[in-house]
């Protein structure tokens, strides 16, 4: 029976009714039939190029790609006839025959969609000689490595770069069997417009794009007797690491993470949430100053280094709108080698600052020449969630069984406001919790600002703060950021404050997070972030005692001279 | 319990004396990598992956180093990490780079180790050993090129099964694990139990696959393809498909098979019930006619071959009953063919078995009493899993369907054939009732259940005290049989299963198969038994009808022709 929104069809003889407009792939899922895919990605519009998902429609030829072919009333689909299986297998063999046979030394070993497919197709022989093409690896930048030899031309990275990030640093070049995926003139990513956000890594089904591995530098520092290794963990790590270690998506594991890091041999386990709270104080003060002093508005957040680089490339004329605050990671680095060094009596050159970040762009950020305000490189090495997971697996830490321990003091003390930095809208929500007090002198009653939350691409709200109606906007994913920035450029954005995060979902969906990261897993991680917020005794940055002590003992006041020197920065226009 | 106290990576830990450093570390959440180590079977410290720093001059293999009082162990120092990495890279350098077409892809300990240890390049590129694959038998394929010389298979073959086929040969870089004089398995006394497959960490020993033949039969419009599923497959297929061990998936398995295109989904449990009728009658017959006793079960083809090689004197004690798989095959191509009016030449019988030896059994020349090869192809649980994955069947989402009639009707007694002691229990349920006219008190016969290697019991059946024994794994069976041989023990009835745990621990079952997992599968078998409306073989209406329509009575002429067989003497090292 047909109605407007439903379609009834038969898949392998099983009758199934699905929403009109579904693909065969989606309909089959409902019928309990898996159709293998490779170029298809649940969050991206893809175009049926790999031909691994071919099925027979109405006994017809040619076979059709289930991932893009739409269902129709009374359609008859066969997904496992000999012809279909043979076609899929041969297509997979064609892909395998140009792929390096080096699973055992591949970064995606056991997390590889191609490897999974080879298993589920029960490949025992590859009909064609193994014949890849030789390409040079691009590891010229601090964040992302591209290994074209492994590329299977599924184009998911390109689609992620376009659809999620609006950048299109990658494209297809050449034709036919010579086709390659790469940047303009196949240059190193360093030399083209790339924000190093790492979303392409999540899109890649194989090991053709991955983060630059800096674990060796960590091990070296830990083993060096004269090094005092301090580690900071970004808000999103506590909801990503457990997943990386094989626990459920959205598992919250703050205490286990601290224990695990101690077991790796670091001297102090601190928290980026501490500097997130500090950021709120500085950035909140900056906002109040701009609003009251006639500064450039809307002011835009500056914690996401991918976003910063994006802005420097595409909106060099709007750099004034960026908050001058460094990101929490960099504030931490600068303080670790000044405030903490002083306080603990350690020579800052012996302090080795390690960041655990959900982010590949943070690796780039740490190497920016501006980030030396302590007199040293403020952050020495940035490791992604995945790299930390890798180290824990290497030394056999049974993560799920670990006891829970506390962060060290003082740079490990934080509030719920710091924690929600990890989710899109979190910085905004945290800032509003504090700005309200700064402006009105009163505490906000309802501190859960639901308007800021969720996976809608661009969120807007008007928040009354005293007499002022504060207009805010939030974007995550650079494609969404572009929408807001074009409005700002045209003068159509009458917001006071905009939060922009480079990655969809915010840092919990960062390019350094566990693979796979999809909208579905982002959703679960965001929920975990808010659980963490709820769990905290203090949930407003200005209530953080350690931050207060920092101002009392060291910085003086927000936006003070020392703050400006250590916690604020400037931006450089970059060419397109 | 005497305890020792030591520190591992700065943490204090107290463990029972005699505990290895490896286990002590595991108790505090430190999982030291291992490869040759296999709990309860193999601890020889050969692979050197589990090295730790115990303060001595050299690093120690934690799997064979016993924790001592005051010991200070470090599992994570640059030296330890480097040493382990070097060891792994050396192993990898001699291993083929063919994960993508390896049968153990995604279920390989070496692959997992490479990932866990973050191997990114090979420091050692060199000569890789070259060997010919041994696929000269119907059941097991050995690929020495993939062998990493961990010797787990040697341990299982020597110690657990005492078949003593596999052994390290040659030395140094030329070392190879193989039968004596590097003979093909088909020319040895190998019983094809496949336990070596289950312990192999990599893809060096695998079952011979009949998947392609089955796909071909399924897509041949001329063929009527029927499938039978062994008792142990319904409690392990879910596990193979990613569910937790012990998941019962009987109905989903039936649905899945139907979706693959089988024309009829039948059940080996039907033939198991039938076996009880025949074997029970045989037991009674032998008791009433002075033997030969003990009667020994004959459903496990690995055991049969073992007996043929090593216990010629006991061949007369073996029940003449074919295994349920072969009874099924013979009936499918006679009784069922007749009933359906299908030319038996067009019937293809596929078995889904937890067992690799069944592949050998189906090829035995004795097994063509229907005038055709009674069973055409045997698939292991793993092979069926592979077919389902390839066909994209979302197993966990499948609805539950029923077996086809008539050969799909069964009782709980048939189901417990999958567990060690199950045949005995099923036989007792029926024999007791046949002899006494009363139901066995408490159908659950606990004395023969569980993972104890040799189990004994006495059952009062009327005037008779029936002495029975159950053994599983051939090592244990050997112990039991030696006692019978020497006259130290006397029984009426003995059940022997080749594989530890019975069929649920067969060589065709999901990898890994450990004792912990065997226990879960056993529990599932008994749950399934409990859930059946009928739990005694003689209550099976399908079996009753079969006798009525076709066989007439147990041990009839037709039964003898189709359901019974004979055995042969084989050389000890054949």
């Amino acid at each position: 029976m047909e109605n407007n929104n439903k379609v009834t069809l038969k898949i392998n003889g099983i009758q199934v009714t699905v929403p009109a407009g579904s693909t065969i792939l989606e309909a089959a899922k409902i019928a309990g039939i898996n159709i293998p895919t490779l170029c298809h990605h649940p969050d991206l519009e893809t175009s049926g190029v790999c031909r691994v998902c071919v099925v027979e429609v109405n006994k017809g030829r040619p076979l059709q790609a289930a991932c893009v072919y739409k269902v129709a009333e009374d359609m008859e689909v066969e997904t496992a006839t000999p012809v279909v299986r043979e076609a899929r297998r041969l297509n997979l063999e064609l892909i395998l025959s140009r792929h390096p046979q080096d699973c055992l030394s591949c970064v995606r070993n056991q997390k590889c969609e191609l490897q999974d497919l080879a298993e589920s197709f029960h490949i025992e022989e590859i009909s064609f000689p193994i014949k890849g093409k030789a390409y040079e690896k691009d590891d010229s930048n601090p964040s992302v490595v591209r290994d074209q030899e492994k590329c299977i031309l599924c184009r998911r990275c390109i689609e992620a770069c376009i659809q999620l990030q609006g950048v299109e640093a990658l494209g297809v070049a050449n034709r036919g069997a010579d086709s390659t995926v790469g940047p303009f003139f196949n240059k190193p990513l360093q030399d083209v417009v790339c924000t190093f956000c790492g979303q392409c890594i999540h899109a890649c089904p194989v090991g053709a794009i991955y983060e630059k591995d800096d674990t060796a530098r960590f091990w070296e520092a830990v083993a060096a007797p004269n090094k005092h290794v301090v580690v900071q963990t970004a808000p999103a790590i506590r909801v990503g690491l457990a997943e990386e270690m094989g626990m459920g998506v959205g598992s919250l594991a703050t205490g286990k993470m601290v224990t695990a890091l101690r077991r790796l041999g670091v001297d102090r386990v601190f928290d980026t949430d501490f500097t997130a709270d500090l950021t709120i104080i500085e950035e909140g003060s900056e906002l109040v100053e701009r609003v009251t002093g006639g500064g450039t508005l809307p002011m835009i957040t500056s914690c996401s280094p991918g976003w910063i680089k994006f802005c420097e490339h595409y909106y060099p004329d709007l750099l004034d709108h960026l908050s001058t605050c460094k990101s929490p990671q960099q504030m931490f680095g600068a303080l670790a080698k000044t405030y903490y060094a002083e306080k603990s009596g350690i020579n800052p050159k012996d302090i080795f600052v390690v960041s655990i970040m959900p982010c590949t762009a943070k690796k780039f950020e740490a190497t920016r020449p501006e980030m030396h305000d302590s007199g040293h490189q403020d952050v020495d090495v940035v490791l992604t969630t995945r790299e930390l997971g890798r180290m824990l697996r290497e030394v056999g830490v049974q993560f799920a069984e670990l006891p829970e321990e506390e962060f060290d003091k003082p740079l490990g003390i934080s509030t719920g406001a710091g924690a929600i930095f990890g989710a899109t809208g979190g910085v905004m929500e945290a800032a509003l919790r504090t700005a309200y007090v700064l402006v009105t002198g009163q505490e906000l009653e309802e501190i859960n600002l639901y308007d800021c939350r969720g996976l809608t691409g661009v969120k807007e709200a008007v928040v009354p703060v005293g007499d002022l109606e504060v207009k805010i906007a939030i974007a995550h994913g650079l494609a969404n950021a572009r929408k807001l920035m074009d409005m700002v450029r045209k003068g159509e954005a009458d917001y006071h404050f905009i939060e922009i995060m480079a990655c969809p979902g915010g840092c919990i969906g960062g390019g350094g997070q566990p693979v796979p990261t999809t909208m579905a897993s982002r959703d679960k991680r965001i929920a975990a972030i808010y659980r963490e917020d709820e769990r905290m005794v203090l949930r407003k940055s200005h209530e953080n005692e350690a931050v207060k002590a920092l101002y009392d003992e060291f910085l003086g006041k927000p936006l003070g001279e020392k703050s400006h020197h250590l916690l604020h920065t400037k931006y450089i226009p970059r060419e397109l | 319990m005497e305890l020792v106290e030591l520190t591992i990576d700065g943490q204090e830990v107290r463990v029972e004396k005699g505990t290895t450093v490896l286990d002590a570390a595991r108790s505090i959440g430190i999982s030291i990598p291992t490869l040759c180590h296999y709990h309860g079977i193999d601890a020889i410290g050969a692979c050197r992956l589990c090295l730790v720093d115990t303060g001595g001059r050299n690093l120690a293999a934690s799997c064979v180093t016993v924790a001592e009082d005051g010991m200070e162990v470090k599992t994570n120092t640059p030296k330890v990490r480097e040493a382990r990495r070097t060891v792994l890279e050396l192993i990898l350098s001699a291993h083929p780079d063919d994960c993508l077409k390896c049968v153990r892809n995604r279920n390989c300990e070496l692959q997992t180790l490479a990932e866990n240890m973050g191997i990114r390049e090979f420091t050692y590129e060199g000569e890789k050993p070259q060997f010919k694959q041994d696929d000269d038998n119907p059941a097991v394929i050995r690929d020495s090129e993939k062998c990493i010389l961990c010797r787990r298979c040697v341990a299982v073959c020597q110690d657990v099964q005492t078949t003593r086929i596999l052994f390290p040969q040659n030395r140094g870089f030329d070392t190879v694990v193989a039968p004596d004089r590097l003979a093909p398995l088909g020319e040895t006394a190998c019983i094809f139990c496949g336990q070596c497959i289950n312990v192999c960490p990599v893809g060096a020993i695998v079952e011979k696959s009949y998947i392609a033949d089955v796909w071909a039969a399924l897509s041949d419009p001329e063929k009527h393809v029927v499938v039978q599923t062994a008792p142990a497959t319904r409690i392990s297929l879910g596990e193979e498909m990613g569910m937790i061990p012990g998941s019962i998936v009987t109905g989903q398995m039936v649905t899945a098979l139907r979706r693959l295109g089988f024309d009829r989904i039948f059940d080996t449990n039907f033939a198991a019930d039938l076996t009880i009728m025949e074997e029970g009658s045989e037991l009674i017959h032998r008791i009433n006619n002075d033997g030969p006793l003990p009667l020994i079960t004959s459903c496990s083809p690995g055991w049969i071959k073992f007996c043929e090689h090593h216990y010629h004197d006991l061949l007369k004690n073996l029940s003449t009953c074919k295994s349920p798989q072969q009874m099924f095959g013979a009936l499918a191509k006679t009784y069922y063919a007749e009933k359906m009016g299908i030319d038996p030449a067009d019937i293809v019988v596929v078995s889904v078995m937890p067992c690799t030896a069944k592949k050998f059994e189906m090829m035995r020349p004795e097994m063509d009493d229907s005038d055709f090869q009674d069973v055409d192809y045997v698939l292991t649980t793993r092979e069926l899993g592979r077919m389902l994955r390839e066909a994209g069947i979302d197993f966990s989402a499948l609805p539950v369907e029923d077996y086809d009639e008539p050969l799909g009707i069964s009782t709980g007694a048939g189901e417990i054939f999958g567990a060690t002691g199950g045949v005995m229990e099923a036989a007792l349920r029926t024999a007791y009732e046949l002899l006494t006219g009363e139901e066995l008190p408490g159908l659950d016969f606990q004395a023969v259940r569980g993972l104890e290697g040799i189990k004994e019991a006495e059952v009062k059946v009327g005037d008779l005290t029936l002495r029975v024994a159950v053994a599983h794994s051939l090592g244990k069976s050997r112990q039991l049989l030696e006692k019978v041989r020497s006259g130290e023990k006397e029984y009426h009835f003995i059940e022997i299963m080749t594989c530890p745990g019975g069929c649920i621990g067969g060589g065709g079952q999901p990898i890994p198969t450990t004792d912990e997992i065997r226990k879960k599968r056993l529990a599932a078998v008994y749950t399934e038994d409990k859930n059946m409306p009928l739990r005694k073989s003689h209550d099976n209406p399908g079996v009753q009808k079969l006798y009525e329509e076709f066989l007439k009575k147990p041990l009839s002429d037709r039964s003898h022709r189709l359901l019974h067989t004979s055995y042969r003497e084989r050389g000890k090292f054949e």
Partner: protein
Amino acid sequence: MEFYRNHILVCTGEPCVLKGALEVESILLTELQKQGLENEIRVIRTGCLGPCNVAPVLVVYPEGIYYSGVKPGDVQEIVAEHLVKGRPVTRLVGTDVEKRVDVVYQVPQILTGQERVVLRNCGIINPDEIVEYIGRGGYEALGKALIHLKPEEVIEEVKSSGLRGRGGAAFPTGLKWSFTASGEEKYLICNADEGEPGTFKDRLILEGDPHAVLEGMAIAGYAVGAEHGFIYIRGEYTLSIERVQRAIDQARKLGLLGKNIFDSGFSFDVEIRVGAGAYICGEELALIESIEGKRGEPRYKPPYPGQTGLWGKPTVVNNVETLANVPHIIEQGAEWYKSIGTPGSPGTKVFTLTGNIKNEGLIEVPMGITLREIIYQLGGGIPDGHSFKMAQTGGTAGGCLPPEMLDVPMDYDELAKVGSALGSGALLIMDDRHCIVDLLKCFMRFFNHESCGKCTPCREGTPRLLELIEKIMDGTAVKADLDLMAKLAENMEISSLCGLGQSSPKPVLTLLEYYQHEFLAHIEDKKCPAGVCKKLQVKGVV
């Protein structure tokens, strides 16, 4: 209109130009001037006249005398003898030329009794003069359609004519038009990206009778409700681009393109888009991508262009020859059209004959004519005493037919039955000197060069096929390689994303089927029967 006593047609098709037609023309004009005949005799440039093998060609009307192989030095004699004295220069009127022109351009009465349709004006009018087109009834069909017919009626007429797409896919044109989704903005695209090797019919139509195509486009635009037409011409066709641009300019000037044509309220204009060297852009969705300024990679279907085409709007894409048929159908009616050809494939078809055949060139014949008739009657047979070995129909993506199939009727359905296709109308004839495997390598190199690289089977499969063919030619192949080749080709056919990948295996499959012995000779005897494969020849000697 002035009266001329003679018209001289100078063929300026590419082959003639290459062989000096323009030089001949300029000497001709000078000579006429010298004789004071410039007002009595008119020299007209025409599109291809057909007999390209004897280029350059002149035709003198009203006598209808064909001069072939005219060299600059011959012109003076032609003017002096023929035009002044009325005595044709028999030395230059090769008899075979006359015969050839007959069979090529006038569809033999014995076969149909029909006139040629699409090529009606080619070689007869000056394509650069719109008045000559109009003089032969041009744009009347457009007038008829705009003034007397509703768009639905135009579609109905074309539907009932049974016209099928002449680009290769043979989809019924009227049906395609009727499937076009409704929408404010729609587009009509004329596919002139004629890349199929051995095919040059569209080029010659565009160069010889560009207005026929423009008129067809305007009618089609009217029928489907599109006001913007694009004609996508491959970049290599410089002359076509020039001529079509000139034709568009002239039509605009006369109001035959542009706003409110014939006061009907219907507006239609045409823009040329030029390709840049990609065979795949002949595929309609790749072509659309290319117009959109992208890589010419096909999109998956559905949605078809009729729903979502150029810039997301409903779009109809028709081949040059298809559109050139349309004015005739509108003018003379569907019944007339159906009387030509076969019931399943009505109308005529333009074929391009190439390879080892006496009369290479262009012919227009009714559908259903047999291969034998084309080769031995129209084509003059195989030259130099060699024998026929193979014909490939439909271009490089077509099937290859052995001598046993010479009597297969040339229409869409009959050819499909034998694993081939009518395709673009290319007919490649090969004689016994050539090696099947060697030729297959040539085909596969083409597809390897032209695969867009988007989908797996075509991108990865084509080079693999090429490798296997090379193995056969090297003598290193085994019999199992033939099975693999067939398996791979079949897979490409059923699982590729677009028509290219689905049809490129056709030659492989048909050659494997019809010439298996020749492949086996290479593999088992290590011999190349035609003596072409060099590596095998050497071994053969030993």
